[in-house]
């Protein structure tokens, strides 16, 4: 009985530590995705090409992170960053082509 109790306590502590480690990793991953997304979005904003969708995604990501759903938070922050990358691509292409549409 004494041995069983020790095993149980050990198992509980191990599970708790493992859980904390996983959460910390996810939180870090979310923060990294957020930093990357914000960098791209700042680039898009500087090129006058921010999408309205990015902010919504970032807000949803923050909400998910607050609720502890880091998997979803990472997914949403990454998507926001992709929207930023696509906006930058549009900006770079349009910079070279917009003049073609002006009537001559």
């Amino acid at each position: 009985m004494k041995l069983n109790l020790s095993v149980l306590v050990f198992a509980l502590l191990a599970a708790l530590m493992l859980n904390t480690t996983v959460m910390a990793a996810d939180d870090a991953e979310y923060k990294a995705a957020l930093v990357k997304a914000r960098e791209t979005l700042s680039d898009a904003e500087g090129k006058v090409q921010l999408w309205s969708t990015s902010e919504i995604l970032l807000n949803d990501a923050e909400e998910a992170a607050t609720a502890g759903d880091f998997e979803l938070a990472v997914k949403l922050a990454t998507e926001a960053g992709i929207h930023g990358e696509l906006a930058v691509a549009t900006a770079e292409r349009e910079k070279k082509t917009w003049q073609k549409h002006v009537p001559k």
Partner: protein
Amino acid sequence: MKRFLIACFLFVVMTNVYATPEQDRLALREFFTQRFPDLDLNEMINGLYAFDEGAREQWLEMEDFPPYEIAIEEGEEAFDTPFANGKAYADCFENGGIGIKQNYPRFDVDSGEIITLEWAINQCRTDNGEEPLPWRTGELAAISAYMAYTSRGNRMSVVIPDDPRALEAYESGKEYYYTRRGQLEFACENCHMQSAGNLLRADRLSGMLGQATHWPVYRSKWGETGTLHKRFMECNSQVRAKPYEAQSQIYRELEFFLSYMSNDMEMNGPASRR
């Protein structure tokens, strides 16, 4: 001979890449003449109603009791009400503020800023110790509507002074107009030039010419009278681009360009639209 060829080359490059605002305006009119050979371009001040006979009839009936009338009345009352210091809006504008909307936006060579009519109204307030008004609707839109009403029948006369900053602002507005943006990748030009007169769902799209002559506008969709910058914000949102703030530099530049394109067209604000 070599110099002559270089000069010819530079002339061709310059005239193609750096058209003057007036060349842009004339080319735009030519674009719409080609696009709608049977249309009197002056009709384009009426937006979609220049293209859609059925909608035009309904609109003309609505003009018997126009929904923007309340804004004109409220705007006139606010315009005539003195500030706490005893001065009034009339003291801030040439000709007492009557019949002057066609001159806006104007480029102020002292500050290097583009001054829209709404900007000037709020500037007048702050210069006289009053709080500025919100930009998009309400009292500011009403005062602007009244001032537009007193300018009806005048011709749009936006001037780009001989100042590189003014030309830069014009070019910036032009670039914004022709640049695709947002998740849907639409430029203003895609709707209001390429697709002008066509249906977008149930709405017919207005053309770019005359788009700046009739603001502020009472939109049934809004249920109130709003400013041109409110519409810019809405257009940007519709293509899922993040809108800028009303009276932000980029929107003032856009208005500067758009208004110049409507130069010599009749002022007919305020107006009503769906």
